[in-house]
């Protein structure tokens, strides 16, 4: 296998299959032409090949040029939105950190270890926020740009209106993501930080431990997806019908199981109810009713908000 073979193979690797044959033949012919020209003017063939390939440069870059792929993660169109959103979202990270720190102190841990786990929690949350926000924007950079800008020509009609109510306010995004982070942290921490301990000293979880076999992990995944959804919504800049549909699905996927679990008294840990309220029957129905009412109201609000804004924006857009 010659250097040229290896170079062409490396270039073709990341080029769409249907274009490979043509680029393969053309690139090979161009390289051979350039090598021959050098040999004719007196170069050693091996040296000439090496020089030609060196001048062509990194095959990955050449492949990106051929397939018109961006050579950056987030381009200038999205960079400012990405930075703005990320820098605000990161302010959420210290909150669960402080919560863990306080709970550790209340639990009798030493100041050093409480501080350590607080910082570790804040760091982990910050890492997740940064990672997922960046992933969403990088994906939008590669897919969304062509959707948002199908004609390719910018006109003044596309200028964002400064007080445009269609624009999702940053505060909405931050508030909603903060709630998801809180719920996420709560689901994790309720196992160990309920404030009650059984006789053998182990912590009593607030939620039924059986739920860890499926429902709690599922809800954790849904919370992450919901947070990602909020970031996408902010990046897109407004509600659309399809975003309202996705929002409805996410909301129902979270709400219906929670209501069902609460209604069938499978949500709370009976041991916790006994420890906290002295008995498990009346308190269970009271706690479950409260959860059902709150969760249902939030869901109605959340789903409704999406549809109202999506339909209203479609109206203004049509005018």
């Amino acid at each position, binding site marked *: 296998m010659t250097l040229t073979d290896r170079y062409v193979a490396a270039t073709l690797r990341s080029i769409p299959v249907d274009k490979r044959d043509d680029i393969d033949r*053309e690139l090979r012919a161009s390289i051979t032409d350039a090598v021959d020209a050098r040999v004719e003017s007196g170069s050693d063939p091996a040296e000439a090949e090496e020089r030609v390939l060196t001048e062509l440069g990194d095959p990955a870059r050449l492949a990106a040029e*051929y397939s018109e792929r961006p050579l950056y993660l987030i381009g200038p169109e999205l960079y400012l939105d990405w930075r703005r959103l990320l820098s605000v979202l990161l302010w959420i990270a210290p909150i669960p950190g402080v919560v863990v720190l306080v709970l550790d102190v209340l639990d009798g841990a030493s100041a050093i270890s409480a501080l350590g786990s607080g910082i570790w929690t804040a760091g982990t949350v910050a890492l997740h926020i940064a990672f997922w926000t960046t992933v969403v924007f990088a994906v939008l950079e590669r897919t969304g740009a062509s959707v948002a800008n199908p004609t390719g020509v910018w006109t003044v009609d596309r200028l964002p209106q400064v007080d445009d109510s269609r624009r999702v306010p940053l505060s909405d995004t931050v508030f909603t993501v903060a709630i998801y982070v809180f719920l996420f942290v709560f689901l994790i921490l309720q196992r160990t930080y309920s404030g009650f301990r059984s006789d053998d000293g182990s912590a009593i979880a607030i939620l039924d431990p059986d739920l860890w076999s499926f429902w709690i992990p599922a809800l954790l995944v849904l919370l992450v997806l919901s947070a990602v959804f909020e970031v996408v919504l902010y990046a897109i800049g407004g509600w659309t019908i399809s975003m309202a549909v996705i929002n409805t699905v996410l909301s129902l996927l979270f709400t219906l199981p929670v209501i069902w679990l609460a209604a069938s008294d499978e949500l709370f840990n009976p041991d916790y109810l006994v420890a906290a309220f002295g008995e498990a029957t009346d308190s269970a129905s009271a706690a479950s009713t409260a959860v059902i009412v709150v969760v249902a109201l939030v869901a109605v609000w959340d789903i409704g908000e999406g549809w109202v804004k999506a339909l209203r924006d479609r109206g203004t857009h049509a005018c």
Partner: protein
Amino acid sequence: MLDPEVVAVHGQEVRRGSVVVASLLMLRTPGYGYGLLEALADAGFAVEANTLYPLLRRLEKQGLLVSEWNTDESRPRKFYRTSAAGEELATELLREWTALGRSLEALDRGTVPPTTEGGAP
């Protein structure tokens, strides 16, 4: 004293875009990748191979060039030729380029009064 790096950067900015015009004008007679690269270099348009080859395909995709594989010779080569749309664009771009050149010369000679409208007297 002029910083050579600054000169190189600005020079590149000025030349950017000239390669498209030059390629469209040159490919009125069909040509292939490496041949065009050499011809452009001889005509004073220094362009890197890794810029030119993808550019040719992009112009073809835009309908400004048409291509055909020539398999008559021992080495099959993809020949590009400027299409009618490409010809139209080349004429348009060349007119713009010439107009820019004239305007710059006029500025240089001082035959165009400096714009002071709305500015300091």
